[in-house]
């Protein structure tokens, strides 16, 4: 059976390079599953968890600010930040979550709600994968 060469790349260098059977991501338009011999595709991703499947094993990667580039035998996930479960700093993610929640409760105009919401999403995303 053919496999997909998957690489997850961030500005700080490649996070993960391996072959998998299937890649499941959350694109802006909804969940998307990629298997070998997919047509070339480009899609932006939400702040979400990408699941990489190999046989019975599933690897999870927290993605933010990323997009997906697919070629028939190759999948590249480019993201501004990406972490596998064992690289997540739970303490920092928790702090970020609290900070963002506090900011969102503040009703004054000085708060950049868009940014706070994004920060909260990123923190929740990280925690979800770390605790799973």
């Amino acid at each position, binding site marked *: 059976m053919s496999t997909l060469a998957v690489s997850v790349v961030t500005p700080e260098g490649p996070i993960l390079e391996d072959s998998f059977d299937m890649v499941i991501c959350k694109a802006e338009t909804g969940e998307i599953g990629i298997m070998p011999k997919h047509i070339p595709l*480009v899609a932006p991703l939400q702040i979400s968890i990408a699941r990489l499947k190999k046989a019975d094993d599933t690897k999870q990667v927290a993605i933010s600010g990323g997009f997906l580039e697919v070629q028939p035998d190759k999948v590249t996930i*480019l993201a501004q930040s990406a972490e596998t479960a064992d690289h997540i700093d739970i303490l920092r993610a928790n702090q970020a979550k609290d900070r963002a929640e506090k900011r969102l409760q503040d009703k004054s105009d000085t708060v950049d709600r868009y940014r706070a919401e994004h920060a909260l999403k990123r923190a929740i995303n990280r925690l979800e994968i770390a605790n799973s």
Partner: protein
Amino acid sequence: MKSLASLRDLKGRIDSTKKTKQITGAMELVSASKMSKAEQNARGFVPYADKLQEVVGSIASSNTDAKHPMLIKREVKKTGYLIITSDRGLVGAYNSHILKSLVNNIEQKHSSKDEYTIIVIGRKGYDFCRKRGLPVTQSILGMSDHPTFADVKNLASETVQMYADQEIDELHIIYNHYVSAISQVVTNKQLLPIENIGEQAASTSNYEFEPNQEEILEVLLPQYAESLIFGALLDGKASEHAASMTAMRSATDNANELIGDLELSYNRARQAAITQEITEIVGGVAALE
């Protein structure tokens, strides 16, 4: 008596120069190790930048109806300059090259302060702009020696947003490009609007776009611009450490030379004192006879 005092003087100067030499020698080693780390960081960034450029290029070249403000040149009313300088001195001409290039640019292109604004990374550049009364919109001081993307994310996205909001109509970035440990070149690049991107990427794939090209460009182009800023910063950091290493090496060399000269005069003075003493003794003996 005079020669004795100058002997002690010389001894003191030799000792203090030796201490300076020890320090500059240590700083050279520190910079060398920081440089190799920074070089590694810059290399780690290459795959990301290449891939991003390939995808953006293939979208831009495959279809001409996909238009985005970041790809279109507009009339320039205000120019943004992003300069990357160091926080510390002791880096030779690293900062002055960049600041000279900035000042030259401004003098050539602009007649009033309303026509440009400056975004600064690094204390040296910030102090320079403040002293000269140049308009600074944003700055980061105390950037780490090995910056992560998160360190510049805010500055980069706000700068790109300034372009999107039409606060600036052009963005130039001035930094030292790292060629090798002994050579860094001041580079002045136009970052926005993005030009010639389709030409550079010889695209092989014909992608499907989900949802469509416009929306992907909407997401991708700001990321692309932000990543270029980060890339320039990594490049600049590698240059900074290289420049600091070179500066410290020549300081060590100069110290060695100075010590050599001082030791020569010290020995001469010592010999002169001995000779004089002997002459005095011989003179004294001759007088007794």
